[in-house]
């Protein structure tokens, strides 16, 4: 495709150009994003390896919260090329998303746990331990 316009550089290419020499803030943002990815690995492996639904929810609920928050705030930092009004507003918007992820993620994992519990899915326990599951319904 021969595009002779200079005005319309595709967005992806533009972002690649800027990240080739990131400012320290952007570098920190990229680092945060990579850290988030690292925690996502823990979530994914836990989802596969843990024995039953409840323990899997541990992996899913916690890994989701932190890694999504990290990746989003990393994205917020990356998008702050200049400290103008627009980029600050974008940063605040992303921080709002982070805040609501922080509130809703534990709630959703709780709701799933409760739904499973009320559906008589028994939590897995180890029988030889002294305290069996204190299930009261």
């Amino acid at each position: 495709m021969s595009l002779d316009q200079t005005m319309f550089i595709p967005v992806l290419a533009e972002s690649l150009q800027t990240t080739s020499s990131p400012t320290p803030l952007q570098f920190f943002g990229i680092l945060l994003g990579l850290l988030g990815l690292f925690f996502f690995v823990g979530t994914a492996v836990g989802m596969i390896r843990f024995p039953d639904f409840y323990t899997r929810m541990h992996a899913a609920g916690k890994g989701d919260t932190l890694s999504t928050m990290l990746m989003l705030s990393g994205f917020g930092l990356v998008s702050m090329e200049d400290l103008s009004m627009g980029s600050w507003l974008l940063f605040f918007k992303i921080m709002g998303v982070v805040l609501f992820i922080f509130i809703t993620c534990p709630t959703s994992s709780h709701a799933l746990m409760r739904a499973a519990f009320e559906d008589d899915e028994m939590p897995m326990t180890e029988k030889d331990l002294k305290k069996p599951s204190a299930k009261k319904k």
Partner: protein
Amino acid sequence: MFEDGTIINELLIERLNYLIYVVLLLIGLHAMIAKKNLIKKLIGMSIFQTAIILFYVSIGVKEGSTIPVYLPEHDLHGSHSVPSDTNETSHFEHGPFIVDSSLVRGYANPLPHVLMLTAIVVGVATLGLALALCLRIYQGYGTIEEDEVLAKIERQEMLSKPSIVVKSVDSSKTTNSKAEKPPSKPKVSSSSPSTKRPQAIPKTKAKAASTSAKAKTSRAKSVSPKAKPAASKSTTTGSKKSPAKSKTAASKPTTKAKPKPKVKSKAKPAVRTKSSSPAKKATASKPKPRTPKK
């Protein structure tokens, strides 16, 4: 392998969007044709719709273009907030300009987006309507399996066709007609004890059928709680229903015109009021017609 002109290149590289839309469309089409469950048909319809939407949106793409919102340099009037400051004269100084043809290529085609935006909303509306119809069908027939619904409609039509003639006949007359019938009929329905006799057999059959149906249905959760009271109901109301059915079945070989429908019209309200458990009736009624034939 991926040179120009080969079919792989054409379908997988240059026209991958059409391949995806065709595959999605076929999935939806197959679901709409082959599935018996009405909800699954609706899911198929949704997939079909999604395929069409994807097709349209992929048509609107231009390579290297942005979304169809003016970039700031093309939208020079910027603050169109204060209504008074953009009167006719000052408008041309800081207002927007006609985007020339070389720049037009930089924006994606807005028309497919508009069409699909409305199509999505109308799709939601039609999906809601279809779900409401499904719910109504479930209320009426107790099932959303297409073939079961069709079987029930067939049975109801068979029952209801002659009953139009006798609609005005009140209940006392129907009992009279019932009394008239026995001589013409075989002794099965001649008297009240004899009506109980065939009923005793179907009772057990109905129970067995209901239990088997319970085990069969995968959605046992929603059905099984209803099944217990329904089974008890069918045993209590079986005295009305089962003789009527045996008669209708018997009517087939010995074509008899009028007296039978009256009894059927009596049986019909029972069918309606017991609409909460029609599934059982269908299963229970099936074995009955066969026995008199034999």
